[in-house]
């Protein structure tokens, strides 16, 4: 069970050698002069609560009302919720969201992991390439969606030229599987640099001694990857996966701009359904129920993943960055 000791080991051997041990005695001297009172945090807290926490609570409340956006919300009990679980559109959206999440994870994790491990080397060409790999992350989702929408135009887009090489039908956004896969791909294209960097950072924290020891024992690169790199990156994989899952459950701009939920309703994932119900049909109570369900699932999934990987056992996460 070498993996269990990983976080501890990392804390001991990592760059965290700095202020940590010194701080502990200081924590006892609570009334030392020159410590700010907690009230300093109040403006930030109030502001954050007003625009993020309160609305979250309000969303739950609104999910028990009927509201058209103009008149006042009227309480309707569990109506929206019973409707939600019997609504074939919502069930399809939930299925599509789940599918998109799985596809995105399967696509992004291996590529980001390998790119990150590769980029962690310190040669100059890697730094240059990494800078190029980073570019998609700078573009807004809107810009990326508009760009890919143009590239994938069956009449004059790039897909018309390149598609046939790979046996891809140029009308890719017009086919139900193609559209969903495209959305997963475009999301991956955009967020790959982010996950690559996360893996690169994780990779750099693995003590070199482990690789030296393995090399002395005669382990080849493949063996080293599976016996050292992967287990050592376990927490990084969790972090990245949680962000990926929450990210793909909340894809929205891409769908609105590229497919408008189509063809038919084949890319109407949950956030898009929420938008359509709320801001196109002005059924804002129902939209709130959809949004609340989305948060519950996203949070539940992240907690589950954190639990299962033992990530929660770690404290003080960002030491030694």
């Amino acid at each position, binding site marked *: 069970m070498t993996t269990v000791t990983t976080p501890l080991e990392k804390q001991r051997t990592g760059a965290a050698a700095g*202020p940590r041990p*010194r701080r502990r005695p*200081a924590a006892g001297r609570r009334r030392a002069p*020159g410590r*700010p*009172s907690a009230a*300093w*945090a109040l*403006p930030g*807290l109030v*502001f*954050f609560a007003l625009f*993020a*926490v309160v609305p*979250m609570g*309000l*969303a739950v409340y609104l999910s028990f009302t009927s509201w058209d956006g103009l008149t006042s919300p009227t309480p309707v009990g569990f109506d929206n919720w019973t409707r939600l679980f019997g609504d074939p559109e919502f069930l399809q959206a939930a299925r599509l969201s789940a599918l998109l999440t799985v596809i995105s994870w399967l696509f992004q994790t291996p590529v980001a992991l*390998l*790119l990150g491990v590769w980029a962690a080397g310190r040669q100059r060409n890697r730094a240059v390439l990494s800078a*190029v*790999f980073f570019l*998609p992350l*700078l*573009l*807004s*989702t*809107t*810009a990326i969606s*508009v*760009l890919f929408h143009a*590239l994938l135009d069956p009449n*004059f887009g*790039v897909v*018309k030229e390149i598609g046939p090489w790979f046996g891809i039908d140029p009308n890719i956004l017009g086919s139900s599987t193609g559209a969903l896969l495209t959305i997963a791909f475009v999301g991956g*294209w955009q967020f790959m640099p982010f996950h690559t*960097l*996360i893996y690169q950072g*994780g990779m750099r924290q693995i003590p*070199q001694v482990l*690789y*030296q020891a*393995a090399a002395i024992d005669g382990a080849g*690169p493949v063996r080293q*990857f599976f016996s050292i790199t992967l287990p050592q990156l376990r927490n*990084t994989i969790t*972090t*990245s996966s949680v962000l990926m899952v929450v990210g793909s*459950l909340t894809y*929205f701009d891409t769908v609105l701009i590229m497919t408008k939920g189509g063809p038919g309703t084949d890319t109407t994932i949950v*956030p898009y359904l*929420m938008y359509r119900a709320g801001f196109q049909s002005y059924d*804002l109570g129902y939209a709130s129920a959809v*949004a609340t369900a*989305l*948060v519950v699932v996203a*949070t539940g999934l992240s907690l589950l993943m954190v639990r299962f990987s033992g990530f929660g056992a*770690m404290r003080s996460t*960002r*030491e030694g*960055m």
Partner: protein
Amino acid sequence: MSAHPTAARPAARRPRRLGNPLAGAGALVWLVVVLLPLYTLISSSLTRQDQALSGNPLAPPADPTLDNYGFVLDSGFLTLMGNTAVVAVATVALVLVLSVPVAYVAVRTRSAASMAVFRTFLLGVAIPAQAVVVPLYLLIAKMGMYDTLLAVILPTAAFAMPVAVLVLTSAMRDISEELYEAMALDGARPLRMLWQLTVPMSRAGISTVGIFSALQAWNGFLFPLILTQSEEQRVLTLGLFTFMGQFGLNVPALLAAVVLSVVPVFTVYLFARRALTNGLMGVGGK
């Protein structure tokens, strides 16, 4: 920078070099995947509209032109740019002014109250913007701010805060206790410590947070979509979306608008690459 002991080098390197060809080839494939769309973006934006519809989109423009850029600039692009700049600057200012004290308290006091505040922000990372747009719509309307830039700025700043607090806290944690003690001996009060010690020492974290909040504000789409309406309050992302409908078959102009919308961000990236990438790397380097 942590230089490896020279003695360790050969042993550490040899296995990597063996693994390189495959990983290197993979990286090259990804390079094509990244660059091809970007290349097409640029080359299409320089192509004349009539040629764009008939020619091969992969070929470089036979007769490059900047007309598309002129057309976009004449279509109200500068208003979009101006609005977005206002939103970005205001968001960064708000985020920093509000988050720095929160992180300072989280690092410097160990009271239950300050830990509770910190934990609130930690949980806040998990709230997706989509979950709150309906109530925000209600809130902003009730506050009389619907269809103003403020309606975009306030929630954007609030949603940038959790990550800001996390990054700032970790930057401030590395400031050694002795420095505070020395200042305390000089009779410094918390405000002076914050201003003369904490802020200068966590400059890297502060610039990371600034750049991230600016990027988030610059690229935000959902809040402007839901909380503004009129053309005067439109930001870049929304502008691209409406251009898409307006320009119809004028794809080169649309892509020129995309290029223009990215130029400021790329410029910042050129100067602040370190702050950006190091900040991100820290997320997983736990």
